[in-house]
């Protein structure tokens, strides 16, 4: 287990329609010293971005009401939220189960930058926490 304690002020928004995934990521991140908030769909998530001003977002792709891709586009098109780093956490892969296909699809959208990380469900906890730590540190250095 990674015993890393993040900046206590660091707030992470977990977006997933699956309550178990939210509980899992909340517990994991809180155990590692992060504050968490959550949203079950893209629309709710956009409200939370405005009111909670998270430092980092974990994003599922297939959700009701508004898909994760749509949310991501809206997030990156708004200058106020464009700088928030995003880790995609999804079971969606390419046809034939190729994990790189979907990642490449996201990267191929030129008008918006690619997400800062891509995690295929089920996640590798250590790698996930390492990515979160790196992105949060980058953010605090830049800020």
């Amino acid at each position: 287990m990674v015993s890393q304690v993040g900046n206590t002020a660091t707030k992470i928004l977990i977006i997933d329609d699956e309550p178990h995934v939210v509980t899992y990521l909340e517990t994991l991140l809180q155990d590692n010293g992060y504050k968490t908030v959550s949203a079950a769909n893209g629309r709710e998530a956009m409200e939370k971005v405005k009111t909670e001003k998270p430092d980092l977002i974990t994003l599922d792709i297939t959700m009701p009401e508004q898909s994760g891709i749509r949310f991501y586009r809206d997030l990156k098109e708004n200058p106020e939220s464009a700088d928030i780093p995003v880790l995609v956490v999804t079971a969606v892969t390419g046809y034939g189960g190729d994990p790189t296909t979907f990642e490449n699809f996201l990267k191929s959208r030129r008008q918006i930058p690619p997400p800062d990380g891509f995690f295929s469900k089920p996640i590798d906890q250590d790698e996930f926490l390492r990515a979160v730590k790196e992105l949060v540190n980058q953010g605090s250095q830049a800020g």
Partner: protein
Amino acid sequence: MTWDHTAPRENSNPMEDLRKWIRQELWDQVPVSISVIDRSFHIIEANRCFVNTYGEWRKRPCYEIYKGRAERCENCAAAETFEDGQVRIREETGIVRDGLQTYYLVHMLPLVRPSGELPYIIEMSTDITAYKVLEKEKLEAERLAAVGQTVAGLAHGIKNLLMGLEGGIYVFRSGMQQADSERMVKGWAMLDENIARISTFVKEFLEFAKGRVPKVHLVSPNQIAQQVFDLFEHKAELAGISLRSDFQPNLPYALMDEDGIHTCLVNLVSNALDACEISDKSDRSVVLSTGDEDGVLVFKVSDNGTGMDYEVKKHVFTNFFTTKGSDKGTGLGLLTTKKIVQEHGGRVSYESAEGEGSVFRLQFPRDRLPHLGEEAKSDVFCVTGG
């Protein structure tokens, strides 16, 4: 045949001769087997294509030549045309040639005397075996492609379940380490629920994979729609959604697999109600309708719920794609629907606008509906073809 049209003839009209020549050439050159049958169903004249295809025809009845039968066919189209003088077009299965089932399209044309007497019928039959074989091969190829998609979809479903199980293990184990019994209970519940989900998932998957032999009967489309409507009426009312029906009166019966069509409509209505449930509109409604449009039987389910955005539309018919969270759907509903509809020679289409709602349509051209199995044939009068 040769004909010297330049040679002068006595008492002959050159135009009339030319017409005769053309008719004779046409009779023998068309790639369609043409025969003339009398009221005893014996062939009294046939063209060259007929001879090439079926061989000697003199003194033989049509049912023997076409179908290898010793007696007249049930639902004989020729008998019906002798009866009412109407032109008939039917698709028929013919004899087995070189181990292969043959198929032909047959036209029955009445030869009527000025007195109104109808002594003969012209039977024109076009061999469509090659098209039928192609059609079967195409269906088989589609089925194989679906198997590939299914495997990829299965992996997707398992990954989601694994994420839930790993989450449960993490929450339970960290609860033990911290002697936090509340957390342990939460983790255990996550494990429990995900194991139950695996069980459901495997059952549904097997259900989908094993397929089922459609049991075709002559059924009332409106009656199936009414049963599905009744099934959801109470649920819709509880959810505050107006469920309405709009069935075309006196909709003709159709040869369908009743359970299969029932499953399709249940899937569509259930999806439509879900789309309404997550919409925050005040006047949410779902309409189930039936109708016949130019020989095409149509079931339609429209809702004014959330509609689908582009990403969702792209994945609508992909296995295991669900927007509902795993407690509400496995993502097999629409795929199963598509499979059943295709088995009936029909198609599924939809229109959807984000925020405005969706319309799903099941279209069944009546001339492509399945035929009755041989064992069930005697139950029903006049069932084959158009």
